[in-house]
């Protein structure tokens, strides 16, 4: 599949040089774009295809009083994006539109993300869009400028890896657990230099939103991009969306999309089989997404790890996380819960978290916030009454944005605070200096909020079903 998309987009391929690859969709946000627009200005260049370029603001926006950005530098960055989009004729979904949101939530929602497209954004989690069978990857600011100016990128072809998620998920096991489990087993750099394609029975039964969760974290395995072959689930998701083809054009597009699927017997540079049957809910204990384990397990003992580098890394992570080796994961107490981000800030994630929270109360020691991934997710959730479920349980209901996923806005952990987070990175200081992040699924995060510590959501007392 990678091969097919690649070949459809290569314009120039010369021996010994990176190929020139055409880009179908370029998403832009406020943090990684100012220097790129500035570069265009300095060299007197224009945006080649403004109609293939879409912008939003997400990283800096406050989730409480969103029009009042108190940090002057944040405000400048947001304002700079507005002026740049006006000057260069780029469509911007700003804070006044319901479509504003985390760039990787917004794109698919608008139907901008299609199978077979090449999609880039100055953001590493662009891999999310691979869930549709699009070749989507993150780029740096120089490359953002490059795409703005030429609608192309110079790229060397990646190697291919296939990851087969075999078996069936047990109740309580989410897409987040699948990807966290995979990275816990194989580490954070096994995908470096590769485009990964996820297949297998357990992938085919995932909804689009769940597939996005899996592809989102491909970058946490080091991969350039993650891909899932499009199928009926993909087509149904896209049907009728604003930027999806409409009517007969849609049916024609579906025929083309079907042809993208990897051929039987295609060869890959690397193959991984991952068993989903025995997977249990995952929690990270360290400062890299690969430092994770099952909820029924314990914090590892660094001395028992196989290599010197792993022992050193684990010891330093445990010191930062203030965890004792051998502690059961269910004994770890938390201060904060963040539900949101481009990994788990979609409507299904909020439904899942709400189904756990319903009828319970957030522990008195815990601050818990729910941040919808976009304006549309927020409105949908409110229609379904999920906001009520959350607020009655003691969660704060916020406005859309990246929020505490990287804490560039006012939502920041204090030093030493421990957070159960549905985001994708648990690096030191990611959610605030000295803050300690544990990555989990939305269900696990909601349960942890209630108990004040991690619990195995498979044993949860669901008070009632939430209507889907």
């Amino acid at each position: 599949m990678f091969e097919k998309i690649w070949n459809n987009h290569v314009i120039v391929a010369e021996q010994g040089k990176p190929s020139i690859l055409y880009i179908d969709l370029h998403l832009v946000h406020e943090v990684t774009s100012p220097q790129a627009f500035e570069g265009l200005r300095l060299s007197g260049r224009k945006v080649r295809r403004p109609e293939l370029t879409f912008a939003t603001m997400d990283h800096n926006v406050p989730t409480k009083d969103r029009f009042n950005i108190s940090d002057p530098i944040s405000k400048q960055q947001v304002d700079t994006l507005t002026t740049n989009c006006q000057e260069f004729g780029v469509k911007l979904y700003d804070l006044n539109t319901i479509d504003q949101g985390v760039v990787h939530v917004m794109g698919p929602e608008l139907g901008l993300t299609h199978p077979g497209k090449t999609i880039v954004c100055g953001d590493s989690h662009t891999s999310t869009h691979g869930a549709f069978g699009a070749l989507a990857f993150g780029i740096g600011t120089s490359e953002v400028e490059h795409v703005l100016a030429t609608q192309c990128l110079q790229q060397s072809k990646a190697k291919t890896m296939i990851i087969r998620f075999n078996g069936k998920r047990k109740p309580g096991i989410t897409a987040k657990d699948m990807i966290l489990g995979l990275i816990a087993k194989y580490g954070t750099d096994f995908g470096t230099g590769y485009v990964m394609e996820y297949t297998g029975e357990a992938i085919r039964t995932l909804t689009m939103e769940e597939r996005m969760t899996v592809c989102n974290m491909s970058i946490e395995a080091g991969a350039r991009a993650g891909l899932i072959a499009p199928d009926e689930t993909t087509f149904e998701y896209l049907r009728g969306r604003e930027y999806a083809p409409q009517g007969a054009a849609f049916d024609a597009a579906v025929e083309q999309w079907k042809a993208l699927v990897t051929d039987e017997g295609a060869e890959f540079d690397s193959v991984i089989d991952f068993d989903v049957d025995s997977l249990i809910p995952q929690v990270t204990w360290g400062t890299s997404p690969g430092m994770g384990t099952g909820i029924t397990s314990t914090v590892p003992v660094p001395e028992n790890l196989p290599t010197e580098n792993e022992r050193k890394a684990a010891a330093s992570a445990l010191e930062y996380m203030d965890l004792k080796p051998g502690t059961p994961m269910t004994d770890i107490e938390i201060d904060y819960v963040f539900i949101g981000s481009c990994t788990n800030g979609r409507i299904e994630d909020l439904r899942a978290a709400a189904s756990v929270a319903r009828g319970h109360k957030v522990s008195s020691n815990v601050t818990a916030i729910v941040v919808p991934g976009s304006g549309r997710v927020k409105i949908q959730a409110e229609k379904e009454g999920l906001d009520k479920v959350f607020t009655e349980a003691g969660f704060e209901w916020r406005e859309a944005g990246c929020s505490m996923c990287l804490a560039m806005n006012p939502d920041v952990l204090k030093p030493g605070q421990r957070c159960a987070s549905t985001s994708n990175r648990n690096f030191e200081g990611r959610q605030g200096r000295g803050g300690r992040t544990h990555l989990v699924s939305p269900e696990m995060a909601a349960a942890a909020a209630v108990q004040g510590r991690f619990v195995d959501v498979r044993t949860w007392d669901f008070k009632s079903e939430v209507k889907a």
Partner: protein
Amino acid sequence: MEAFVKLNGLVAPVDRVNVDTDAIIPKQFLKRIERSGFGQFLFFEWRWDEQGNVIPEFNLNKPRYQGASVLISRANFGCGSSREHAPWAIMDYGFRCIIAPSFADIFYNNCFKNGILPIKLSEEQVDDLFKRTEAKEGYTLNVDLENKVITDNDGLNIAFDLDEHRRQFLLQGLDDIGLTLQHESAITAYETKRAAAANA
């Protein structure tokens, strides 16, 4: 872009695996809209504590490593966010060359766009460099991109590998966008062909 041909520079070690771009340049410094001035914030949370005091144990704070232009570190350097602020900060601080057993893709790519040479060596070779650096105050390396070798004054001589296109790119300090625009007619032809196919 500034070309990179040869470098003779003091070596500074950051002995960690998975050095992520959040650590290289924390997000509170990503709000600027310029490319310059990020060096002062490089490894911010490792250089200063919460009260703003210098953390003396961190290598870059030690007098012996001041003025270093070669950074050595461990596997998966530059993982995490795609922020180009990371190479900007590294460059602005004064580093022109990073040596590690492996780099994350986006970061690796971003280095070349900014005139930084990332060199991949084996775990053993990097380990050896760590030992040499620690053993000798003022330890310097000669990095010769023309011939793809690293030498020191004690007889070390390591050949390194680099994609030929990337090597030329750095040696000549080329402008990427300019290179692509040389293919303007091919791009336009592609766009025309695609538009025709879509309307067929």
